């Protein structure tokens, strides 16, 4: 993953191609020609994505060696803007949106800077009207944008980057660690990934808000879900809804036989896994989610469970499953994953192992307690937002909310980890 000015060309290609293809699609009355222009747009978009993201993986898988790998750098944000651009031409083809005639505005839609490198994957009919609208600087927008940004920076610099200090050494040297340390690292990674990615979203969203823009909702407190099905309604919503609209529904959605539906779900989750990167571990991660999603669906149906809402057992189950699933996401290869799972599922957990893994000093305990406290704080804040506690309380808005965010801002500098750790999703 890197950025190089020459790679800006890769941003220009989808802008020009999709701008032109969309215009042609709207002009053609002949369905075959319309389809041809759409195919051209998809082919070029996916072709670029495939070349930069999967060529070396494919070469490595075929020849079982990295010797023939090409010197390719994955351009930052390519997965996001390719999907965003692709959704536009598909929507034009479907007649959902009218093509944009002003190429500058269209270029702004694709390259809108707050969300360019790691999403959310915007939709044309959501962002474009805002690009057309006139924006004035409003103090309320500024304050609200700053609040969102502060929370985003806190999640990224304080929670995610601190957890990295525990997670990285454990995963990178996993043969040296016991099951209990690996399990804790797995849970920490789940939190780290969430805070890293949603932290980026908050910063992007806050930045956009300063200018009077509202970005599409991407996170709905997924770690408070009580099931995997619910989790996917809340996690990386812009990608999930993209897959729903442009993969799942064209495959037939749920208006097909049960066998075909199961297949459709698996396909969507496998593609979602592969979208994250060219590694078998992402495929395993996608498959695990697909299988559990289906099992959950049928279990609920057989047991006639209709109740929705928060359940403590469901929540614990969700966190346990996601911890295990995201270990696959974090592992560097199948061999590592096997090693980690075999240690975790041997269930030989003991505090002594944990202590000897980290040669505990007072300082380690101090840092560990801070991390646990930060995770507890994260869940508290999410619960507060989920249940809209204090929202209608005037003294909260006037006194406590500003103090809370000022405290949060200062704690970023006190507790933050400033050793320039890039966002995890920049690599996708």
């Amino acid at each position: 993953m890197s950025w190089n000015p020459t790679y800006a060309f890769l941003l220009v290609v989808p802008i020009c191609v999709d701008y032109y293809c969309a215009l042609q699609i709207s002009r053609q009355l002949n369905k075959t020609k319309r389809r041809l222009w759409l195919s051209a747009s998809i082919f070029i978009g996916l072709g670029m994505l495939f070349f930069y993201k999967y060529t070396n993986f494919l070469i490595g898988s075929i020849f079982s060696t990295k010797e023939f790998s090409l010197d390719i750098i994955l351009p930052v944000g390519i997965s996001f803007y390719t999907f965003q651009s692709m959704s536009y031409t598909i929507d034009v083809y479907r007649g959902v949106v009218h093509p944009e005639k002003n190429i500058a505005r269209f270029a702004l839609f694709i390259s809108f800077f707050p969300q360019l490198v790691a999403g959310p994957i915007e939709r044309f009919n959501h962002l474009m009207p805002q690009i057309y609208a006139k924006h004035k600087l409003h103090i309320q927008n500024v304050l609200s944008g700053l609040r969102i940004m502060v929370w985003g920076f806190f999640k990224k610099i304080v929670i995610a980057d601190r957890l990295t200090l525990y997670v990285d050494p454990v995963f990178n040297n996993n043969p040296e660690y016991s099951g209990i340390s690996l399990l804790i690292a797995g849970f920490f990674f789940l939190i780290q990934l969430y805070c890293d990615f949603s932290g980026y979203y908050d910063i992007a969203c806050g930045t956009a808000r300063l200018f009077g823009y509202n970005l599409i909702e991407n996170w709905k407190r997924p770690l408070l879900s009580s099931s995997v099905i619910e989790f996917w309604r809340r996690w990386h919503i812009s990608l999930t809804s993209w897959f729903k609209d442009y993969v799942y529904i064209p495959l037939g959605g749920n208006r097909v036989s049960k066998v075909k539906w199961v297949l459709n779900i698996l396909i969507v989750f496998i593609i979602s896994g592969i979208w994250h990167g060219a590694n078998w571990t992402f495929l395993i991660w996608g498959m695990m989610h697909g299988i559990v999603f289906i099992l959950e669906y049928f279990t609920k149906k057989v047991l006639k469970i209709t109740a929705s809402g928060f359940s403590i057992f469901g929540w614990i189950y969700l966190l346990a499953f996601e911890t295990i699933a995201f270990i696959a996401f974090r592992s560097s290869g199948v061999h590592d994953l096997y090693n980690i799972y075999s240690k975790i599922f041997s269930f030989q957990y003991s505090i002594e192992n944990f202590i000897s893994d980290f040669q505990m000093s007072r300082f380690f305990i101090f840092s560990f307690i801070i991390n646990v406290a930060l995770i507890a704080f994260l869940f508290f804040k999410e619960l507060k937002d989920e249940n809209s506690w204090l929202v209608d309380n005037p003294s909260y808005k006037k006194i406590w909310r500003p103090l809370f965010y000022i405290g949060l801002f200062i704690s970023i500098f006190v507790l933050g980890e400033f050793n320039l750790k890039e966002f995890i999703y920049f690599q996708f």
Partner: protein
Amino acid sequence: MRKLIVYITLIIVLGFAVREFFYFGTKQNQAGEYNKLNTLFLKENNYDLIIVGSSRAESHFNTFIIDSVTNLNSYNLGLEGAEMELMRTQLESYLLNSKPPKYVVLNIDYHIFYEGEKEDTIYRFPRFFPYLFYNNLLYNNLKKIDKRFFYFKWNPFYSLAHMDDKYIYAGLKGYMGITNKLDEKYYKGFTPIPDEFQRDFSKEKYTSYKSSPPASVYSCIKSIVHICKKVNSKLIFVISPIYYKRVNSITGEEMFMAYIKSIARKNSYIYKDYSTHSLCFNASLFSDPNHLNEKGSTVFSLIFAQDLYKELSK
């Protein structure tokens, strides 16, 4: 808009307050490195002999043994990662508030001068933050080495961002009176390296290199000599033991050592080189090739103190 100004003011005030909270805690440490920094930068001292140098000075010179053998009141000012410029600052800062000592031991690390290598900042620089407002000499000297010290002093958020958990912990440790393993055997600036830090270096490979001290090192030595002359302190040059394989891997130090010897000769200063002493061949006395362990420091300090006593009795 007024609201925004109020928030910004509040943030700045709180930033200074939070930072001062940690600084104050750091200054409450009764043992270990921060106690030494307090002694060095804040207190008025009256020692007969002070030891200036890096981590080697800090962990090699046992002040308890030196005091017992020589009947002098000594203090070890050695600081981990201190290069020559920082050693000069150590001495100058000490003299700012304290009575000049009779003797200044300068431990020379000739083996750390790799060709062309020059750090652009100070090793573990956040440890000096709590003292920037109280010791202008320290601030000015550090600012000469690293310009960011202006911002470290005046921008609380910039300095807080550079203080990782270790420094926050040091602040809290001070309030709670906790000590860590390194602090437990701390005595008047001497901090032996605990057994847990012992490294197996028997199979370590030593790539040979040329020791080439930059011009700034020569000028620092010169200025240390000048300072000592000014306050009438007698300088004692010491090269404390390093593991023989490490010593053998270094070439080209002759010119620098000849320079030190010539200063010593010219000013009638004591010069003691232990880099070829028999204890340099005993791996069991070392924690790593550059540092003696606790046992090694006891043996060395005894030898050094006896040598010093003899020299001073002449």
